[in-house]
């Protein structure tokens, strides 16, 4: 047994004795140990970077699968394995949300398995597959956000259920897909259900007891959003006006206003702020969210929130897309990176956004510093006004201007976003962000829709096609890119046949890893994107590539298992927009490459 394991056991024991130990102290320790992968995003800052360098540019071609494990679940597998130094990998599955503890030293023998008992009626209200983005760990406990809105804590030792808390109601369209984050002895988790007219909220539960500590809504009165118009900042100034979460909606619409924060949460321990984005507003038909026939901001949908981790109070807000007309769901991860800009050190927050724009904000004040297109086909907005922080929308691609029951064509990017939830990676060595990208555009036709509790509340139909060919990527629907968050420029980019829907990883071995929808895990040179190694897993990858070191050996591990929105949209290929009526799926069909099935694959160099 490694010394690390003993050392950790001691740490865990001390934490248990002292009782009130802050969970983030434990996690801070774990994230600083480069051998571990204790958080889904690698660290609180969301960087998905590892300082391990045993596997490097020179030997990566020798990397081989050491063992594989089938989860027995067919749906899309997002998220990835956790390694906290106890000789096990902890993994999860989509609905029915199994949790496995696997023995690394016995090639994945099941130490224990937990399977919750959930109402299958939650399955059809999960709009885009029954995915789950993974476990959180702190102080010997594992935390999971079940599809049926139950937050649970399990003993990592034996899988015993320690507590459970009800976070929502699936009969009203609420569900959960996200990975919780543990901060200051609180488990922070948000709801899903933006396509069912839910009201988005993020909630903190006591990590030891499961008691609710605070809840902040994405819409509604300030008292429930946990926002103070005199002190909460927007673009560096106080918000000013009260209850914008009510007044920027037609009468009562905020109650079904969406803004579900189903993506990743990051945390800055020095500022004691958590960061996350809220989802799309209620119906996709913008006309039903207009006030007096005019566009209305629908606050605080598609908004980056910086909240005090202990009270939930919003320190600042930045609405990326006021009055959404394209379903540019604002949940993408907020990477916390320290940058130098115009000779000044800044605490930055970088987003590779659904909208096709790469943002850089000041994470202390929420000021917008950079907003540039990373996907050149992006056309819904020409640019962002850096003084107001608002996008300048092109009326040709405004589905509100074009109108209800009008098919607005050739909007880029698609509602899937130029990047979806797949979390990016930041390398402090290169100062660049690495991300999987979708190169897909859409036609969008809004229609009137009536709200019925528990029923879809969508109000638009859309068709998707690959981004236009003049981007030099004929027939390609994805890419993997290196992005300079300060200059706002793509540094290099490699093409992929399909949208890249997996989380990225960078390592001190000068490597970047990602997975493809066909099922390849790839390692590329961090300097230029040259492919150095690939392996075909049994099914398409929408999970994240993670790394850790156990008994002196570095491992790479990934969950494969195609599904999610990518699987629904791309299974049978897309049509050629030029072909018009009668088009067949000329662009590669995902179903020709891969089928369903969740598998964990663990790689290492030969001895």
């Amino acid at each position, binding site marked *: 047994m490694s010394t690390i394991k003993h050392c950790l056991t001691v740490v865990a024991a001390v934490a248990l004795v002292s009782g009130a130990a802050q969970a983030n102290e434990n996690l801070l320790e774990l994230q600083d140990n480069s051998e571990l992968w204790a958080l889904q995003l690698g660290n609180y800052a969301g960087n998905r970077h590892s300082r391990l360098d045993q596997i490097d540019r020179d030997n990566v071609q020798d990397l081989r699968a050491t063992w594989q494990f089938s989860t027995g679940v067919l749906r899309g597998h997002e998220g990835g394995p956790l390694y906290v130094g106890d000789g096990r990998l902890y993994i999860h599955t989509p609905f*029915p949300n199994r949790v496995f503890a696997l023995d690394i030293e016995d090639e994945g023998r099941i130490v224990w398995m937990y399977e919750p008992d959930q109402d299958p009626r939650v399955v059809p209200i999960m709009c885009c597959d029954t995915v789950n983005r993974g476990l959180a760990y702190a102080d010997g406990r594992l935390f999971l956000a079940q599809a049926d809105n139950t937050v649970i804590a399990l003993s990592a030792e034996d899988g015993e259920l320690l507590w459970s808390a009800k976070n929502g109601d699936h009969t009203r369209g609420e569900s959960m897909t996200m990975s919780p984050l543990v901060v200051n002895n609180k488990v922070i988790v948000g709801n899903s259900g933006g396509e069912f007219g839910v009201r988005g909220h993020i909630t903190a539960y006591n990590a030891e007891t499961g008691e609710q500590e605070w809840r902040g809504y994405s819409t509604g009165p300030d008292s429930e959003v946990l926002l103070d118009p005199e002190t909460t900042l927007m673009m560096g100034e106080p918000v000013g006006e009260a209850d914008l979460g009510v007044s920027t909606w037609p009468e009562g619409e905020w109650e079904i206003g969406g803004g579900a924060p189903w993506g990743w949460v990051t945390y800055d321990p020095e500022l004691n702020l958590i960061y996350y984005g809220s989802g799309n507003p209620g119906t996709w038909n913008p006309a039903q969210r207009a006030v007096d026939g005019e566009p209305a901001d629908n606050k605080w949908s598609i908004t980056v929130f910086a909240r005090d981790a202990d009270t939930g109070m919003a320190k600042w807000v930045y609405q990326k897309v006021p009055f959404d007309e394209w379903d540019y769901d604002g949940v993408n991860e907020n990477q916390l990176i320290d940058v130098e800009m115009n000779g000044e050190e800044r605490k930055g927050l970088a987003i590779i956004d659904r909208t096709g724009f790469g943002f850089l904000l000041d994470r202390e004040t929420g000021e917008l510093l950079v907003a540039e297109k990373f996907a050149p086909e992006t056309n819904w907005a020409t640019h962002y006004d850096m003084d107001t922080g608002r996008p300048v929308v092109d009326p040709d691609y405004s589905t509100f201007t074009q109108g209800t029951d009008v098919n607005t064509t050739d909007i880029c990017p698609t509602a899937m976003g130029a990047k979806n939830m797949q979390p990016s990676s930041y390398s402090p060595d290169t100062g660049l962000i690495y991300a999987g990208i979708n190169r897909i555009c859409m036609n969008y036709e809004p229609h009137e829709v009536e709200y019925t509790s528990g029923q*879809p509340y969508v109000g638009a*139909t859309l068709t998707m096609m690959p981004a236009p060919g003049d981007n030099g990527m004929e027939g390609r629907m994805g890419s993997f890119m290196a992005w300079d968050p300060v200059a706002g420029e793509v540094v290099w980019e490699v093409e992929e046949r399909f949208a890249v829907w997996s989380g990225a990883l960078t390592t001190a071995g000068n490597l970047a890893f990602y997975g493809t929808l066909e099922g390849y895990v790839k390692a590329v040179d961090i300097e230029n994107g040259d492919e150095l190694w690939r392996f075909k897993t049994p099914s398409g990858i929408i999970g994240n590539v993670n790394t850790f070191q156990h008994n002196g050996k570095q491992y790479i591990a990934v969950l494969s298992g*195609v599904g999610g929105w990518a699987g629904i949209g791309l299974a049978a290929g897309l049509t050629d927009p030029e072909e018009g009526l009668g088009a067949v799926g000329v662009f590669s069909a995902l179903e020709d490459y891969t089928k369903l099935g969740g598998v964990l694959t663990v790689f290492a160099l030969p001895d």
Partner: protein
Amino acid sequence: MRTKQKQAAVVCAVAALALFMLAGKIAISNEEPRYRVEDGKVDDNIFRGYQAYTRACMACHGPDGVGSSFAPSLLRAAERRTFAEFARTVAEGQEIQPGQVMPSFSDDAFVMEHVSDIYTYLSARAAGDLGRGRPQRIEEDE
């Protein structure tokens, strides 16, 4: 669209469908679906079926009825299933494999009103009379 009269009609239609199903017969169950496609343009039934499909079914069954990683192709279903079988599945839902859930639409007036249009649209797609994408109506642009 949303008048009281229409609502009442829908409720009646649903009730009628349910009755037919109870009696084990649906008036048109053994007939080939009738539709008109001219120069790639479609009649109102198909167009309404396309709209209803994209609004209510596409999120799971994928674009244009082709199926997805989440739910099977409905082109195949339209070929292999009678309208009665098809309508029963839509009304009652289905879960053959655990966790693979086709919801029941019996409470969804919009869908129940359009089941036969959806079936017609999918049949036209399955027969190869209609390609992928948003079809144009025969009256449009004329």
